[in-house]
C-alpha cells in the first residue's frame, strides 16, 4: 500500500484521506504527501479528514498530519476529523496539536567571511586580557605558595615528574637523535664542499646546544604533556571538580597549576640535556659513516666546541619554555566551559598555543643573545 493523501473535491467541500503507512519508516513519503496536499485544496472552505485507510500511524506521522491540519486552519479552511473512526489516530494527532509551542526555525544562513573575521578580531582584546590576567594570577601564586606551602598539592609532584619527564625521555631523545643526524648529514654535505668537514662537530654543538635542543624537546613536551595537562584540567572543570576545589577553599592555581609548572620546570632542562647527548650521538653516526673522520677525532673536536656559553645558552631557556607550556596548557584547561566538545577544542588550542609560544620565546632568547653578544 502506497503512502499518500488522496483528495476529492465537490465544489467548496473536499474530503481528504490519509492512505497507507504514516510512520517513521515512511517519513519521507509522508512528508511529500503532506506538502502536496494544501495545493490541491485551494479554494475549498470545508475539509473532511478521513483516517480510516491508515495502515499504521505513529508519532512522526501524527506530527506531520497535525502540522497539515494547522496549515489548513491558517489558510482559513475548516477541517473536521471523523473522530468515531480510527480513534487511536485521532487521539495521537490531537496530542501533538494540543501541546504546540511556536519556536521559529533557526536561520540557516552562515555568517560571512568578513563577519567571522570581525568577530574573531573583536574577541582578541578579551583573550589577551584573559591570558595576561591568568599569567598574573600564576605569578601572584608564587609568594602565596611560599607563605602557605600546604596550599599546593605537593603529593602530586613525583607523579607529575614521572609522567611529564620520565615517561617522555624516550620520545624526546629519539627526536633529538634524528635532528642530530640531520644536522650531521647537512654539515658533511655542505661544509664538505669547502673541505671543512672537520668543523661539523662544532656546527652540531653550536646549532643543537644553543638552539635546537631546547626547542625540539620543548615542542615534543608541549605536544605530549601540554595536551595531557589541558585535557585533564578541562575535564575537571566541566565535571565541576574545580568548583569543588574552590568550595573547600583551595585555589586551583596553587593546587593544580603550581605543581604542574614546577614539574615542567624541573624536567624540561633534564630532558633537554639528555636530548643534547643523543643529538651528539646522531651527528657522530652521520659524520663517521659519511666521512673518514675517526671517532676519537670527532669526540675531541666536540669536546673542544662545548664551551660553558654554548651549554648554558640552551639550558637557560628551558625553564622559561617549560613555564610557557605549563601556563598555556593549564590556563586553557581552566578556561574550559561547556561539555565534551569544549574539552577537545581547549586541548587543541593548548597544544597549538604552547608550541607557538615555545618557538616565539626561543626566538626572543636568540635575539637577546645576539644583542648582548653571548
Amino acid at each position: 500500500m502506497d503512502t499518500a493523501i488522496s483528495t476529492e473535491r465537490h465544489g467548496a467541500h473536499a474530503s481528504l484521506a490519509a492512505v497507507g503507512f504514516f510512520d517513521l519508516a515512511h517519513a519521507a513519503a509522508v512528508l511529500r504527501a503532506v506538502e502536496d496536499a494544501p495545493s490541491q485544496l485551494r479554494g475549498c472552505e470545508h475539509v473532511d479528514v478521513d483516517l480510516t485507510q491508515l495502515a499504521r500511524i505513529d508519532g512522526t506521522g501524527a506530527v506531520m498530519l497535525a502540522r497539515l491540519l494547522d496549515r489548513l486552519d491558517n489558510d482559513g479552511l475548516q477541517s473536521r476529523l471523523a473522530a468515531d473512526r480510527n480513534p487511536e489516530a485521532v487521539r495521537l494527532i490531537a496530542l501533538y496539536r494540543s501541546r504546540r509551542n511556536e519556536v521559529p526555525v533557526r536561520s540557516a544562513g552562515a555568517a560571512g567571511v568578513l563577519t567571522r573575521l570581525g568577530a574573531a578580531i573583536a574577541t582578541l582584546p578579551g583573550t589577551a586580557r584573559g591570558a595576561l590576567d591568568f599569567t598574573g594570577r600564576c605569578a601572584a601564586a608564587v609568594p602565596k605558595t611560599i607563605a602557605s606551602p600546604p596550599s599546593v598539592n605537593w603529593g602530586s609532584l613525583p607523579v607529575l615528574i614521572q609522567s611529564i619527564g620520565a615517561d617522555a625521555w624516550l620520545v624526546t631523545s629519539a627526536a633529538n637523535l634524528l635532528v642530530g643526524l640531520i644536522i650531521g648529514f647537512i654539515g658533511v654535505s655542505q661544509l664538505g664542499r669547502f673541505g671543512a668537514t672537520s668543523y661539523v662537530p662544532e656546527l652540531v654543538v653550536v646549532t643543537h646546544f644553543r638552539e635546537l635542543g631546547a626547542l625540539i624537546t620543548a615542542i615534543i613536551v608541549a605536544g605530549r604533556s601540554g595536551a595531557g595537562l589541558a585535557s585533564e584540567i578541562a575535564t575537571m572543570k566541566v565535571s565541576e571538580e574545580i568548583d569543588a576545589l574552590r568550595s573547600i577553599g583551595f585555589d586551583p592555581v596553587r593546587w593544580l597549576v603550581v605543581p604542574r609548572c614546577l614539574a615542567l620546570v624541573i624536567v624540561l632542562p633534564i630532558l633537554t640535556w639528555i636530548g643534547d647527548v643523543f643529538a651528539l650521538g646522531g651527528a657522530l653516526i652521520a659524520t663517521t659513516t659519511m666521512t673518514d673522520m675517526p671517532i676519537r677525532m670527532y669526540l675531541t673536536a666536540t669536546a673542544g666546541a662545548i664551551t660553558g656559553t654554548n651549554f648554558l645558552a640552551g639550558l637557560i631557556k628551558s625553564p622559561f619554555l617549560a613555564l610557557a607550556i605549563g601556563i598555556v596548557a593549564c590556563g586553557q584547561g581552566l578556561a574550559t566551559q561547556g561539555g565534551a566538545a569544549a574539552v577537545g577544542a581547549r586541548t587543541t588550542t593548548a597544544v597549538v598555543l604552547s608550541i607557538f609560544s615555545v618557538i616565539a620565546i626561543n626566538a626572543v632568547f636568540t635575539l637577546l643573545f645576539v644583542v648582548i653578544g653571548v
Partner: protein
Amino acid sequence: MAGDRPHIIVEDLRVAWGTRVVLDRVSFQIERGITFAILGGSGCGKSTLLRYLIGLEQPQGGRIDIDGVGEPHRYEGIPPFGVLFQSGALFSSMTLEENLALPLTTWTSLRGPIVHDLVQAKLDLVGLGPFARHLPGEISGGMKKRAGIGRALMLEPDLLFFDEPSAGLDPITAVELDHLIVSLSRDLGITVVIVTHELPSIFLVAENCIVLDKQAKGIVATGPPARLREESTIPFVHNFFTRSSPGASATEGR
C-alpha cells in the same frame, strides 16, 4: 501489533561479573502496553538487568526475547526501544534541539524544517517546548531527564526503559516526572519498564513489578505493587514496601 504475546520474555537469565554471580535463573514476562517496575535494594542487580534488557551485554545463560526484536544484544538497525539513562545522558555540547534531532537525522533521510517540527513536537510533549535552544548545562536535572525522554521517543519506539528516573530529583519534580511517564504510557500506548527503588514512584506508576533480592540473586516476588505491600509474607518484600529495616520488623513481631 502482536496480539496477546508478551512484549518481553526473560527465561532463566544468568548474569555474572567474572566469577561473581549477580542474578541466576531469573524468569519473568512483561505484557504489552503496561508500566512495569523492576524493584530491589541497592546492589541487587536491577540496573545490571536493565543493561541486559537493552542489549548492552550478552547474557551468560538463559534468554531475553523482546517481541519484534528478538535477543536485544544481537539486534541491529533502528532501535525499537528508547532508554532514559539515570543522568539523562544528553550530549553536553549540543542544544536540546540538536540532541533530539540526532537520532532522526542518523536514521532517516529527513532534513530541514520537518526535523525541527518533529523535534519541537517531542519537546512540547515532554513540556520543554521553550527550551529547544538551551544546552544541557543550562537546564535543571529534572529538565535533563525530560529531554532524555524526548530523545528516547524520537524514533517512535513502542517500548521505553527508564533507569532510576527520580534519582537525584526533589519530591515535586520526581512526581511531575512520574506523571509524565504515566501520561506518555497512556497517550502513546507504549510499554514502559522502570528500574527504581523509590516507593512513591512505584505506587504511582507501576501496574506490575518484580522484586529482586541480593541474597536470593533473583526474583523474590512478582505482582502489582499495592498487592505485594498488603499481602506479601516474605520479610524482604514486606520491609521493602513498608520502609522498615529487618531489625524494626523483628521488634514489631512481624
